[in-house]
């Protein structure tokens, strides 16, 4: 026989003292224990088969406010019939209502019930009855409730039970369900009480006092149900998108790239002109690019750069190019925009770092004037990598990208011819995603055109690639609506595991 805890011991003793069979409420009263404590003890005791718990569903009926009112004055239909009898068993509705002094709110209800209960006949607004009908079960129940207070429905006759249902519908009474529990000592329980039992003192929380005083040796530490569910806690963590940004940044850092960071607001000069995009290029239109009203115009860089860029656009300058053959406007170049690619920052960086080698990268925000839908955002991230050195080649770029995407878990990558206004030769990379059994576009790439590098005095080939980040993230996170990534659904972040696969 296992030991009994203090509350179990007490419950058992009191139950025996009160005759062996009692409602829980009585035990609570006699023991001074909390209801929950008695129930917890009773559950353990019943598992040990020392007592039995009997459950009984009980429904209590009580009068509602309106019910009380009717119990005092009689149901409205009763008040009308009484008045009608008083008026000689025949009268108009108005006369009867007036005689009964019936409140306006109850008139329709009362007439309805007079009709339902078949107490009157009505012809053209005239009520007629033979005599006052006897008291119905509904009225009896109402009276009983009024006089005796709450009644248990289980003890009522069939007719009164039916009457209770009707009164409930009329909202004159309330019914409250409750489970009544009785405890009953079993033979085994009785035997234990008779043998005399001693409780074990149990402790649930180890305290500094118990530890220092070594009293812990004498007390019993309560055993816990280790399978019981504990409250959920959510650890602090970084955003799932941030995790992938960090993964991409680490791939770059491991490959010896240095991170650069530049302004989000850019002049059109660095975003477009410096990259040999003619000033009437469709990408520069308001439909694609966010322009600013405040601040509106920025400053152009040093004269030497501006002049070289202007001439390159106009006639190719000394780059060996035909140029775009138009009149270049500094006003257009001063316009401030939200950068449409991080290449604006790259070319600015290269203009100031012309000594080879330069190996830089960024994973940063860019902007396009796009309507938001499941696959488009107006603000998103771009991955960009740059290698500038003596004698680097297109094959080197392909090799670098293969290595980079391998680090991101993409093994099958192919390179196709493509076009970008500021690179030549250009290419684009696609990757095979085994999970989706499909090829996806990864990035655009190429070697900066002479028309881009020469105006800034950059003398060596510049290998460049850039691509979106979100596509990669959606793939990794299994998200199919791009907008969800920045919705900051706390449930999603809380429940997304930090480690994947």
């Amino acid at each position: 026989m296992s030991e009994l805890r203090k509350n179990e011991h007490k419950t058992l003793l009191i139950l025996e003292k009160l005759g062996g069979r009692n409602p829980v409420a009585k035990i609570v009263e006699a023991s001074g224990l909390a209801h929950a404590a008695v129930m917890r003890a009773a559950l353990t005791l019943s598992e040990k088969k020392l007592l039995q718990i009997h459950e009984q569903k009980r429904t209590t009926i009580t009068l509602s406010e309106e019910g009380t009112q009717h119990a005092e004055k009689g149901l409205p239909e009763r008040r009308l019939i009484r008045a009608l009898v008083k008026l000689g068993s025949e009268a108009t509705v108005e006369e009867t209502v007036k005689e009964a002094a019936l409140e306006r709110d109850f008139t329709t209800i009362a007439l309805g019930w007079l009709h339902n209960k078949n107490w009157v006949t009505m012809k053209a607004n005239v009520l007629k009855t033979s005599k006052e009908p006897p008291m119905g079960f509904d009225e009896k129940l109402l009276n009983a409730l009024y006089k005796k207070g709450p009644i248990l429905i289980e003890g009522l006759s069939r007719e009164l039970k039916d009457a209770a249902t009707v009164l409930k519908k009329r909202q004159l009474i309330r019914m409250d369900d409750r489970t009544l529990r009785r405890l009953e000592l079993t033979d085994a329980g009785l035997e234990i009480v008779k043998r005399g039992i001693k409780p074990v003192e149990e402790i649930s929380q180890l305290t500094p006092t118990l530890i220092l005083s070594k009293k812990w040796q004498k007390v019993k530490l309560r055993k816990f149900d280790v399978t019981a569910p504990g409250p959920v806690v959510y650890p602090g963590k970084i955003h799932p998108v941030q995790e992938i940004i960090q993964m991409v940044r680490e791939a770059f850092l491991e490959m010896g790239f240095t991170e650069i960071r530049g302004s989000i607001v850019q002049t059109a000069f660095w975003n477009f002109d410096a990259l040999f995009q003619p000033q009437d290029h469709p990408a520069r239109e308001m439909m694609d690019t966010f322009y600013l009203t405040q601040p509106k115009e920025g400053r152009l860089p040093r004269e030497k750069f501006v002049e070289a860029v202007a001439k390159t656009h106009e006639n190719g300058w000394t780059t060996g190019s035909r140029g775009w053959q138009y009149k270049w406007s500094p006003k257009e170049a001063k316009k401030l925009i939200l950068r449409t690619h991080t290449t604006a920052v790259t070319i600015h960086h290269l203009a100031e770092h012309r000594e080879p080698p330069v190996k830089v990268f960024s994973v940063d925000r860019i902007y396009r004037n796009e309507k938001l839908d499941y696959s488009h955002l107006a603000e998103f991230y771009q991955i960009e990598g740059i290698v500038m050195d003596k004698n680097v080649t297109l094959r080197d770029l392909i090799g670098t990208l293969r290595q980079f995407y391998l680090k991101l878990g993409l093994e099958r990558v192919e390179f196709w011819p493509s076009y970008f206004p500021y690179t030549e030769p250009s290419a684009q990379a696609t990757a095979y995603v085994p999970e989706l059994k499909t090829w996806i576009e990864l990035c655009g790439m190429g070697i900066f055109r002479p028309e881009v590098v020469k105006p800034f005095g950059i003398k060596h080939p510049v290998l460049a690639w850039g691509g979106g980040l979100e596509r990669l993230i959606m793939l990794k996170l299994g998200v199919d609506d791009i907008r969800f990534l920045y919705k900051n659904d706390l449930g999603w972040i809380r429940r997304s595991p930090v480690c994947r696969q």
Partner: protein
Amino acid sequence: MPAITLNRDRFCSFIGRSMTVEEMAKWLPWLGCSLEETGPDYVKIEFNPNRLDFSSYAGVARAFCGLLEWKTGLPKYDVRKGKITVNVDSTVSAVRPYILGAVVQNIEVDEDSIAELMEMQEDLHWGIGRDRRKASIGVHNLDAVEPPFTYTTGDPDTSKFVPLEKTTNMTLKEILKSHEKGTAYRHLVDWAPRYPLLIDKKGRVLSMPPIINGELTRVDSSTRNLLIDITGPDLNAVTDSMNVLVTALADMGGSIESVQIKYPNRTIVSPDLKPQQMKLRTSNANKLLGLELSETQTMQSLRKCRLDAKRLGKELLEVSIPPYRIDILHEVDLVEEIAIGYGYFNLKPTEPATVTTGRQHETEETANHVRQIMIGLGFIEVMNYILTNEVNQYEKMRKDSGKEVTLANPVSAEFSIARDDLLPSLMKNLADNRHESYPQRIFEVSDVIKITEKAETRSERKLHVAAVSAHPSANFTEIKSCTEALLVNLGLTGWKIKEARHSSFLEGRSAAIHAKRRKIGILGEIHPEVLNNFELENPASAFEINLKEAR
């Protein structure tokens, strides 16, 4: 990007041999097109805006035959000397000065080729013409009119003709006002006192460039001889459009005849389909591509791209470029042609010899330290857009809007300005997550943009961190402890927390963080009115620090 749908059978008639849709889909991407869609009997491709010659079957077929070595080298285009003249009236110089023309004879057009021609025109109008501004094309039934032609101007109120798709005479002004093309392109001429017109010997109107052609010269499947006119303010764009269009028509079976364009002071014979020459140093090409191709191999690759090359000297070639390759601006463009001819699929990856060590940006390093500390304090990271709106950023926060970066063309009212602090974004996050269990502790370490006159871009991006804790007993003490833990663990010293007022926070329960005699942040209990504005029911306490100023 522009696109073309290639019906297999029709494409096969251009390449002169039969092939499957799969074979088409296999090879087209190696020309630099991307596959949009393949169907049982067609392939839809997107082509890059530099290769407008791909806007016709003929153009794609030429390149395709070259890549597969069925036809290599320069395609030849003969232009017979014609007798037709276009006189240019001096009045056009004020509105749309240039015109070029060409005659295409004995061409058999059917419904398909007419549709193709229309699409090609649209691609050229977009790609070269920049929506008809720099160049616009008119294709006419030559037999419906009588040369010589005159490119002149007409009076907006008195000149009349029947435009395409109409049955009655309309004045030029009426066309701009009520014709579909008139309303779309009126801005290209409506500022001029007189509008451009192309008329024949009898004064009949062929077209009103760049708006609409006349119904008189409408091309249908019975048309055999075409007159092409291309007008614009930019002779390069006009010439480029002409070259791409006429070479395609020649490949469709037409024979090209020249037109004399008589300007008041000179005469141009158009079209000029002679190849252009450009020098190429093979060593440069090899150096850029990382290949060691011999001169012969280089020339072979160029021929596969329908160019011709002849040796001028050691490692020096002269390359002939067909008139439709308007994208070749520089020697480097020929280098790419070599790579395409050689096959991108043959380019074996190599690794650059460049040896460097990587380093993260100090700002990102700080951001990562902040993340580590905030996570330790039990906060979850959120990531919001920098773009926001005044209601969320100011009104709901009980703040006045000031000088913030403002978009000229916002895509929606939701994103019209750039945020200058982070906290409003976090409050919005709380509002969006009311159904989630509390406590909610979130933070963001990211950028805000502030206007500053001295910067080149009149603005500066700054790294901030903000955090908010929301739950039934959130209070000042909790957030102050977190703020101090962050500051201490970032290794910052000499900072002070002083009493301060801030309209987003409760008075008497808000403070400012000062360092180096500057205010670098705020903290406190969020004002209940702000909570009401975001429809939040739990108290919240928050802080925000400008990390750039803190260092």
